[in-house]
């Protein structure tokens, strides 16, 4: 009788991989989120590729790579062609995020998974909705209503509510119940008893310090570095959490009249802020209020300078500064370059505001203790000149043909290489070195440290909590003479270590950035030169949780408040998923599912329902009693048919049968105590019971704890000798309930 609901994860269960799930409701297939990660590994999309053509609609929840990164690729290569629904900011900031991803990639590699045009055409299909807009689907999805609701976390972030026949399926991942500077908290708690709730376990094991304390620590560590004449790098996302960070910094800088420059450096920084300025109605009440009163747009940034190329940053005079640069994973983008440049100076600080994606440079650096040195690939796009150019034009055709073949070969090699480097970096052996973490001490002889790092052989990275897919870095580059090799790779490292670090400096002094950026847009033949080098990590590395997700404890309390009839857990490490599953089975509801990739689970509610018309005659005799938002009444009715053939309820012709009396209501002993006290009766708690007057006691047995799908029926025992008081108190007790 109920609406049939099936959930099939396509990616991102029992680990922290990108999110992508198939939710089908009465045969209508929703793809909720279409994420990819910063490695852009097509193997993640295998399950999606199989079902892409059957998808009827795509719902996007957040404007970051993990939630929508695969959209252009899926649209172009996998045959996804369904209409996409998202909020305006998710659309706009998502688009900018993808631009930034593409430009960062293109700068350092022959990135060919999708192009800017693919991004544009993918986002052309997006229907933009506002929060709590009930959008009625038509055609195949007739009868389904989708509505985005506030999720917190990111600007425009969405909790999707899909409704059919009065049954709600709610998709809520990465929500944040706390109100922040930028955003209001999620409204997830206002949905009570949905048929199905799909949520993530990402933060189930994390707990956060208070916001005030965290903000203070954040500013303290930044200011300490700046006053120590160091630079601060905040690897950030393109248009997500970075907005909150900017507001924190802006506010603090204004309050304390600080002059240290702050830079926001992404390929799309200025358009991001331009658009964000026009999204005021999606932000927190306080931002909206301040605009209404003073017309101060919170994003008319006074202290943050927007930059879109690295050469602009280089023009800035030396001296302590803060740079917020994309990507948060440090895998590519400006943050990658700046990190390489700054990591070797112990005065500097790299402050991570979110957990790095799995198996990325950021994640390695967040390991405890952090690695002493990391191996990175520096790549640069340079225009072809002279002979090279001629050769290029000549052989362009041939290269194109051969490229496919070569690429597959190189991937294999790359795979080995990258795996190797991962191992070294995550190697627990590093911990064994008696040297303290680099952040605290600089004067460590790095040669010794490095030797340990170079131990080879497969040891799982200490940070890995789940099986991981092989990671291919598309950094292998080709020129006319075959693969570009870095001679240094073939030299015994002990000797050239110092050279390598020096070379970092040399390379970055090059003024090619500006030209390189423009290269992306014109068709001048160019090539990417890359070399691997090892960076000594001497700078301070700090991780602070500014992810803006509800922490484990809050998630649990929200879930038990929402109390869904069925719960599906996705996205989160195996540990976290299992932990939350066990918790929810005990405290939230008996139907908790945590499916594997490709496993279809049926969460069709076993709820029976049918619709009846309430006839006017019946309703005129019904006496409602009001209870909060609800009005309740007991009805006894006879089933009849209306002219249109639907069922209707008519008054009974015979006297109604008796029924057991129902006490409706929920009394809290403490409230009742106050109530009695106000009636002039002496009350006190003693031994778990409420003593009313001299003799009468009230007790609650089988306390209404949350168990197996909400509160069980309250049991209240009233005891006492025969006396006036007994009847008086009983009357008061009854007055707290509605008897039906």
């Amino acid at each position, binding site marked *: *009788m109920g609406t049939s609901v099936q959930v099939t994860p396509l990616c991102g269960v029992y680990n922290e991989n990108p999110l992508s799930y198939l939710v089908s409701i009465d045969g209508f297939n929703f793809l909720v989120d279409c994420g990819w990660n910063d490695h852009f590994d097509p193997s993640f999309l295998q399950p999606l590729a199989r079902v892409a053509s059957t998808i009827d609609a795509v719902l996007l929840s957040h404007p970051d790579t993990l939630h929508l990164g695969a959209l252009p690729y899926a649209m172009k290569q996998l045959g996804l062609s369904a209409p996409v629904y998202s909020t305006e900011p998710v659309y706009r900031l998502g688009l900018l995020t993808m631009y930034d991803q593409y430009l960062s990639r293109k700068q350092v590699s022959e990135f060919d998974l999708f192009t800017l045009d693919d991004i544009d055409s993918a986002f052309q299909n997006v229907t933009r*909705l*506002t*929060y*709590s*807009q009930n959008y009625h689907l038509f055609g195949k999805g007739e009868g389904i209503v989708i509505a985005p609701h506030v999720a917190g976390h990111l600007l425009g972030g969405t909790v999707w509510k899909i409704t059919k026949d*009065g049954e709600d399926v709610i998709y809520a991942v990465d929500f944040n119940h706390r109100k922040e500077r930028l955003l209001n908290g999620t409204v997830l708690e206002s949905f009570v*008893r949905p048929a199905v709730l799909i949520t993530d376990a990402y933060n189930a094991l994390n707990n956060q310090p208070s916001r005030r304390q965290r903000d203070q620590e954040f500013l303290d560590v930044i200011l300490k570095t700046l006053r120590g004449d160091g630079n601060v790098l905040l690897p950030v996302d393109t248009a997500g959490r970075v907005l909150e960070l900017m507001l924190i910094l802006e506010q603090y800088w204004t309050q304390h009249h600080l002059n240290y420059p702050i830079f926001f450096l992404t390929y799309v920084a200025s358009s991001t802020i331009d658009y964000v*300025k*026009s*999204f*005021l*109605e999606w932000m927190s009440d306080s931002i909206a209020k301040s*605009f*209404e*009163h003073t*017309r101060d*747009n919170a994003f008319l940034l006074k202290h943050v300078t927007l930059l879109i190329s690295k050469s602009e940053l280089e023009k800035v005079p030396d001296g302590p500064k803060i740079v917020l640069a994309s990507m948060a994973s440090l895998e590519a983008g400006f943050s990658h370059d700046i990190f390489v440049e700054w990591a070797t100076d112990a005065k500097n600080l790299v402050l991570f505001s979110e957990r790095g994606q799995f198996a990325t440079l950021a994640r390695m650096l967040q390991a405890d203790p952090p690695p002493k040195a990391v191996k990175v690939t520096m790549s640069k796009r340079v225009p072809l000149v002279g002979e090279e150019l001629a050769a290029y034009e000549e052989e362009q055709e041939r290269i194109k043909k051969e490229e496919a073949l070569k690429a597959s070969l190189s991937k294999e090699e790359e795979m080995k290489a990258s795996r190797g480097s991962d191992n070294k970096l995550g190697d627990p052996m590093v911990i064994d070195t008696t040297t303290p973490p680099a952040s605290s001490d600089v004067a460590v002889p790095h040669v010794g440290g490095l030797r340990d790092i170079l131990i080879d052989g497969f040891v799982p990275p200490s940070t890995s909590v789940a099986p991981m897919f092989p990671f291919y870095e598309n950094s292998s580059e080709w020129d006319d003479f075959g693969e570009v090799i870095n001679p240094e790779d073939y030299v015994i490292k002990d000797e050239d270590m110092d050279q390598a670090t020096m070379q970092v400096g040399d390379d970055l002094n090059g003024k090619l950035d500006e030209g390189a950026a423009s290269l992306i847009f014109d068709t001048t033949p160019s090539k990417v030169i890359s070399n691997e080098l090892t960076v000594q990590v001497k700078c301070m590395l700090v991780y602070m949780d500014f992810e803006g997700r509800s922490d484990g404890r809050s998630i649990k309390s929200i879930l038990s408040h929402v109390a869904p009839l069925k719960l599906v857990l996705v996205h989160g490490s195996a540990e976290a998923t299992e932990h939350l599953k066990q918790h929810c089975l005990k405290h939230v509801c008996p139907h908790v599912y945590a499916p594997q990739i490709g496993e279809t689970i049926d969460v069709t509610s076993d*709820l*029976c*329902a*049918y*619709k*009846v*018309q*309430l006839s*006017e005659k019946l*309703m005129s005799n019904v006496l409602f009693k009001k209870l909060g*938002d*609800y*009005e*309740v*009444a007991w*009805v006894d*009715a*006879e*089933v009849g048919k209306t002219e249109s053939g639907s069922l209707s309820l008519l008054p009974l012709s015979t006297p*109604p049968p008796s029924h*057991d009396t*129902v*006490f*409706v*209501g*929920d*009394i809290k002993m403490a409230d009742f105590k106050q109530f009695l006290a106000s009636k002039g009766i002496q009350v006190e708690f003693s031994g778990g019971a409420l003593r009313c007057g001299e003799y009468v006691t009230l007790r609650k047995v089988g306390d209404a704890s949350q168990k197996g799908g*909400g*509160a069980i*029926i*309250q*049991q*209240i*025992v*009233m005891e*006492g*000798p*025969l006396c006036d008081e*007994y009847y008086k108190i*009983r009357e008061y007790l009854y007055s707290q*309930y509605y008897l*039906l």
Partner: protein
Amino acid sequence: MASTGPSQSLKRPDSSLTRGDQLIITPLGAGNEVGRSCVYMSYKGKTILFDCGIHPAYSGMAALPYFDEIDPSTIDVLLVTHFHLDHAASLPYFLEKTTFKGRVFMTHATKAIYKLLLSDYVKVSKVSVEDMLYDEQDILRSMDKIEVIDFHQTLEVNGIRFWCYTAGHVLGAAMFMVDIAGVRVLYTGDYSREEDRHLRAAEIPQFCPDICIIESTYGVQLHQPRHVREKRFTDVIHSTISQGGRVLIPAYALGRAQELLLILDEYWSNHPELHNFPIYYASPLAKRCMAVYQTYINSMNERIRNQFANSNPFDFKHISPLKSIENFNDVGPSVVMASPGGLQSGLSRQLFDMWCSDKKNACVLPGYVVGGTLAKTIINEPKEVTLMNGLTAPLNMQVHYISFSAHADFAQTSTFLKELMPPNIILVHGEANEMGRLKQKLITQFADCNTKIISPKNCQSVEMYFNSEKMAKTIGRLAEKTPEVGETVSGLLVKKGFTYQIMAPDDLHVFSQLSTANVTQRITIPYTGAFGVIKHRLKQIYESVESLPDEESEVPAFQVHERVTVKHESEKHISLHWTSDPISDMVSDSIVALVLNISLEIPRVVVESEAIKTEEENGKKAEKVIHALLVSLFGDVKLGGNGNLVISVDGNVAHLDKQSGNVESENEGLKERVRVAFQRIQNAVKPIPASVS
């Protein structure tokens, strides 16, 4: 709700039998007039007020809508469509000076501009202190009470669901759709179906409303195409300027002015020869509203948003702001746009007074002019006008009326209504004559569609009846099987807002936030007599008195009426045990009474003597009682054959079968009476059976 004048009521065809629920719509302003928009609506105990404006032609209390017609404290929701004074300016008064305690909603852009515009209005309006409706502080306080709603966002307050659509007209203008228990009412406010330089055209709602309250400002007039109007506008200005004249454009500071500035700025950019002639935008709000226009580009059309991607189109290159007349250096030809639009007072009036007697000058009225203002007067080009200082002056300047006011014209109105096909149309916001003509024309147009078109005057109520079908959803255990016709359904009917659910009591906590409870009671009564006595006495009252097996309760115990357990706790006490419900409470009360009675009687009671009577004896005794009672009721009662009783009353005879209770008689009245009497007597003499409750 008092309604003056002949009240127009109408019923839907299907509600002719049962009247259904009454829906009342009363314009408190803007009924057969333009200005002070305010429409009151009430249905099923829910009350909504649309808009809250003032009449620009009046001042002080006279400008307010007829608020005294209603009780402000009963209003649940107040919806404001856009920021124009005639739609929003009495809001601070209504929020701060009346008993209103409901909630107010408007769109984000409206709220931001509302504050700017009203603060300016308070400063500019030159009225005496006692005539002031509110001050700056009231506006600030009202800001805290106003909540925002985004286009298409659905909100629900007290069971009233509402959302809004883009209305065109001005930035942030909205049309509100209200849904109360399935009856939908659309209030258009001011709307325009034509896309212009920066605004989107009004949307057509996807649902057909039951009632459409629509503006009729332009009645049956038709607008010239936009480009023609723009050309006339620029031509007039161009020729006046080139002939050395000055152009005055009186316009409301915000809203349409931005559109005109966009036109002028573009025209100047395309005509370098005009670059020497200044354009002034004389409004203190000019600069301040810029931030608002920049921020809410998402409420504007694609064209301006694409422009915005490159540069801010509201950053005018040829237009300079003008703070007041003191800063104005009137040396040569110029174009000045000044507020207010009606030339009532303020800068536009000051300039008008200066320029009106020179025939080289021109005044372009770009918007709708409200009756009662000077602008309305000069449209008819009188020979003379009265200046602000009371003197009269000849009106020599040319007056052009080119409307850019973004109200729907007849073509737009009629296509809009044709798309929607609402069964009821209520016209507001239009002058009586225009409205009358529109009404006639619409009536002919919708002649064959059974559409009611009404144009109520201020305070004149329109009553309608809607028989909204109430649908309930039966869920949970109760719905395991869909019942057949004729079966009964019993359960809890739970109403939230206007949605109904029927469920079993056990499911209540599953489908709602309500929970159910059981109250168990235990009462101890001092009693020193024999336990058996109580049981014996109870047996006379209740048919079901069952001893409970000893092992279960250690002490002697029995259960009365299958509900209340009586236990012999000790020599001195007995206890009663039951789960609360009205019947059990009653049974327990009777037991308590009985026990107390026995306690009193104890010295006199000899248990043995009354103890054991045979079933037979009991039966005989009962029969005697029945007979005696029947005699006392009917008089002549004789024993007939087969244990029947023959009862004769006034010649009518009834035969009563004592076993089955069947009565036979030719007189229906007697038959019924005997039957009832016998039933009651039987109930009285026999113990109460457990099945009766």
